[in-house]
């Protein structure tokens, strides 16, 4: 596979054009918004928990941005649905990056991790789960709320 095909490989294009879990949830248990002001990628994450208050029953994202940020967040939605929020709060970024499966420059890395950062903030706000040490408080250039 030449590099061109790699970066915008079919899986990524598919997630970009047909994002999984795209939309919003009214009465969400957890919600946060993230934005990269350097390029305008933005994402809103909504989570509804199961009766146990921990299992992620439904999770959706809305927003706009580059193919990498949107595709990565779409993949993330598939990855975390049905999992424990406590576990997802400490999901290693490599798990998501492996799923994306292509090498990313530092600039594009931020695009890829915007959704994950925002999801973790949503969980932190709702359940007090820890923010990862890497970026507690502020994720470099990202604006999260």
């Amino acid at each position, binding site marked *: 596979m030449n*590099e*061109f095909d790699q*970066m*915008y490989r079919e899986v990524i*294009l598919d997630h*970009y054009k047909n994002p999984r879990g795209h939309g919003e949830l009214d009465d969400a248990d957890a919600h946060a918004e993230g934005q990269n*002001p*350097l*390029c*305008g*990628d933005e994402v809103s994450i909504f989570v509804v928990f199961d009766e146990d208050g921990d299992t992620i029953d439904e999770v959706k994202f809305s927003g706009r*941005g*580059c*193919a*990498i940020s949107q595709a990565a967040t779409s993949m993330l939605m598939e990855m975390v649905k049905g999992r424990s929020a406590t576990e997802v709060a400490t999901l290693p970024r490599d798990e998501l990056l492996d799923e994306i499966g292509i090498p990313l420059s530092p*600039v*594009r890395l931020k*695009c890829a991790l915007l959704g994950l950062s925002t999801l973790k903030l949503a969980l932190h706000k709702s359940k007090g789960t820890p923010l990862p040490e890497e970026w507690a408080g502020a994720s470099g250039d990202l604006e999260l709320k």
Partner: protein
Amino acid sequence: MAVKVETKLNASKLRADFPIFEQEVRGKPLAYLDSAVSSHKPRQVLDKLRTFYETSYANVHRGVYTLSELATAEYEGAREKVARFVNAPDPRELIFTHGATESINLVAYAWGLDNLGPGDVVVVTELEHHSNFVPWQYIAKRTGATFKAIPLDEHGELQLDSLEEIARAGIVKVVANNLVSNALGTINPVERLGEWAHEHGAIMVVDAAQAAPHHAIDVQQLGCDFLAFSSHKMCGPTSVGALWGRAELLEAMAPFNLGGHMIRSVKLEETTWGQLPYKFEAGTQPIAEAVGFGAAIDYVSDVGLNAIEQYERELLVYALERLADVPGFVGYGPAPDRRAGIVSFNIEGVHPHDVAQILDMDGVAIRAGHHCCQPLMAKLGVAATNRASFYLYTIPDEIDRLVEGLHKAHKLLA
């Protein structure tokens, strides 16, 4: 005395002077369309740097030994070249700094802190690079002065009819503007703004970072009080630039960086400052880089600034023609005769990062982002744009490859 006739620019021939173009990017020849962010360096500059370090390098000014004399002659020789380049009346008005950003900060702090207060107005424009926006905003806040920005119209030109209203906000003390916009390429009416500034007793500060490499500068004709530019955008090394300022203003100003070399005498009770330009050159300066800067000035002057400007305009017209056929192409900025060789654009439905990435796959380098002009981006209603920019080594083939890549990006992602 021989009169230099500027011959028409031969970009392919000049390109051969730049070793970087021997590099391949992802197996393809480099198409570099980001000179607005920084320029590449010709052998002539690289050789000068090497030779200087190998034969004449020493710290300057104080040494009694031969090497120091040689180095000093090179360094001061470079200063004279840079001063002549902008037609400064006196080389001691030409301060070496670490670049345009530092030059502007120097004026904002060393002039601004002592000359601004409540009731005063600091005027910039919506078109400014952050380096000519943020320092003024900060100093205005620090001193209690009012901060205003001249707005843009839909063509990317300054709305000069807003000046009257701005003047009503208080006593205008400083007007800061970029001669050429790095984001849109707009050539701003700096002389006109300078006149208005002086009518109000204000100083005129010109950010010439984007202009100096592409457009002949004459500070006496521009009528400005300060002018800032950088070496790295005009074929010179990084880490060095210049501030030209009127002697009477510089002499009245407090120093900016303090320490070695900018002093006359240092005693426990009191220290006195050195003369211009040294008053503003504390510590060991980027000596070799300044010498490299001088070599870059020689190179660019040899090619001829008018020839460069003319050539870039031709490239611009060609680029805009070809870009008009790209589906979803949205261009920003004024007509070709009102701008330098810069094209800021978006492809509808494709994020700038993706455009730039796809182009990189084919060895084409452009910039995607806000270009350090967030206020401008807000005005345009976008978070980011793509930007292609030209210089004396740009060839039409690079523009063709840009267009091909944009077609590809649109097909793939829009």
